[in-house]
């Protein structure tokens, strides 16, 4: 059966992975720039221990609010912690929240969206009703409600951000899946007597992968922004975990005048990360599915 579902032109003439990558970069210079930022962020998160010398969480009251210097590249905060170190470790927090909540939320949305399109009828109607209700809440309000239920801290923040993403992904995936449902190969699969699970997982899901990937990339940027907002409000990641939004809370505003670096650098880190994921996501969208608008 596998031979039927595989596209006919998957012949050896396909260009190599490297050539494809090169073509992507040449066609989307902005997307490539975004991809570069994303890679740097991931490298920072993974290699945090290797590229920093200070402890991101230990206070050093001998070096409070130091201006950027050769010793402290981006200065220190009100507890004497090195900002560069905290920003690098903050990438870990931001990316783990961003990736996990975008992946889990996107994947649950994918399954619900495809199932909704496949079964149609009353199931679809009820699912869409639920999604409509969830979408009527501003993202931050839903996330706030979730945080109140689950509590603060990194894991709970991930959960709180994941849930509002599900309907957003399900909506986009469903509209693509509705088109897939009408194709002859789904009829063929049905005629072969396959079960619902097999049709959904093997035949429909792979064919709505492009919109799924696009929504998910966009969601990573949004999740990073949401985590920063929640942490800024004091309802997200908690001290002393290094997180960009948390770094802008309290100290940043109180010392804005005398130590502006505390307020400036974490914000640049958030903006750059979101910027990178958005550009990369846009390029991915143009490349995979030019007609899709998220």
């Amino acid at each position, binding site marked *: 059966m596998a031979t039927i579902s595989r596209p006919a032109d998957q012949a050896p003439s396909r260009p190599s992975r490297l050539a494809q990558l090169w073509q992507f970069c040449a066609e989307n210079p902005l997307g490539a720039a975004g991809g570069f930022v994303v890679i740097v962020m991931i490298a920072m998160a993974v290699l945090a221990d290797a590229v920093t010398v200070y402890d991101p969480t230990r206070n050093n009251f001998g070096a409070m609010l130091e201006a950027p210097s050769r010793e402290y590249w981006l200065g220190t905060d009100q507890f004497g912690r090195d900002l560069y170190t905290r920003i690098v470790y903050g990438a870990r927090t931001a990316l783990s929240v961003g990736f996990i909540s975008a992946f889990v939320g996107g994947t649950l949305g994918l399954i619900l969206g495809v199932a909704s399109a496949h079964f149609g009828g009353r199931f679809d109607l009820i699912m869409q009703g639920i999604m409509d209700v969830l979408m009527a809440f501003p993202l*931050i*309000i839903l996330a706030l409600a979730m945080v109140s239920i689950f509590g603060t801290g990194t894991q709970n923040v991930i959960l709180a951000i994941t849930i509002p993403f599900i309907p957003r992904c399900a909506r986009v995936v469903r509209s693509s899946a509705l088109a897939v449902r009408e194709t002859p190969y789904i009829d063929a699969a049905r005629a072969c007597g396959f079960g619902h699970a097999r049709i959904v997982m093997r035949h429909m899901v792979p064919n709505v992968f492009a919109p799924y990937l696009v929504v998910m990339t966009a969601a990573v940027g949004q999740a990073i922004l949401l985590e920063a907002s929640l942490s800024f409000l004091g309802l997200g990641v908690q001290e002393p975990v290094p997180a960009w939004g948390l770094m802008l809370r309290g100290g940043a505003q109180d010392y804005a005048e005398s130590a502006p670096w505390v307020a400036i650098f974490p914000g640049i880190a958030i*903006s750059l990360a*979101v*910027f990178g994921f958005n550009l990369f996501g846009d390029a991915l969208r143009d490349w995979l599915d030019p007609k899709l608008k998220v």
Partner: protein
Amino acid sequence: MLRYILNRVLLMIPTLLGAAVLVFVLMRLIPGDICVLRLASGGGMDQQVLANCRQEIGTDQPMLVQFLQFMKGLLTLDFGKSMWTGRPIIDEIGLRFQLSLQVAIMATITAILIAIPLGTISAVKQNTWIDYVVRGFSIAGVAMPSFWLGILIILGILITSKALFGSPWMPPIRYVPLWVDPFYNLSMLIWPALATGYRYSAVATRMTRSAMLEVLREDYVRTARAKGVYHKLIVRRHALRNALLPVVTILGIEFAFLMGGLVVTEQVFNLNGLGKLFVESVSNQDYNMTQALVMLVVAIFALTNLFIDILYGWLDPRIRYNR
């Protein structure tokens, strides 16, 4: 037309009902008890006092009764009293609603003033340096968290005012309605409106640009050009009017979100708006207040969507709602 509107209003009912159920359940899933919170702030914790408090605000009733009371309140537009302050919810919300509405309107105006000219020029001059600058400006707007932009604006105000007048100046924090003292009011609210307006303009600029690019390739634009119509007139009358539909949609949706979603910006600028009230009422477990606020935000969202659809017919006479 009237029938269409009526139909749409009826379709809002299931959404509102769903939202009501959702917020009702969510609030009761939050661990804790408002009476414990209220009494803890007052000192002593007596079982009898606790029971009295629960009876007073009605949390001792069965869930179903509580829900039916909530529904009755919604239908009669009588939301009752705040469980935390004991004041009527209408009054509490009314105070903040003014402020939030004003910021939302000002931010939307800012977004329109930025997005439509920039998006248009960016499309007309596609792939020139102007286009690249505009796109960079709008991409930056999407990426920058508005609360950070707010901090930067405050920082900018502090530094400039110190340089100009010698002493730092801060925007006032007490809300005065626009018609009482317009200068005072604007000097307070212009900053959050700029910070959020810029962010929201970014999405709208991109939308204006892509819609304009599409329309500028239409046959009727070419025809107009062939007739010798002035370039400016083509852009303004032939292209922009037809490109506005998706932009209006985006702006409308954002306006609705601004009414309830300004939680973080309000924190930065120390504004006492709906977002702050929402955060407070959730953390105080004020069921009545949170429920009323959520229903307000969801209703604004639904009504804005309806308003946008009606606006479509006005902007594009080809759209008819007769069926």
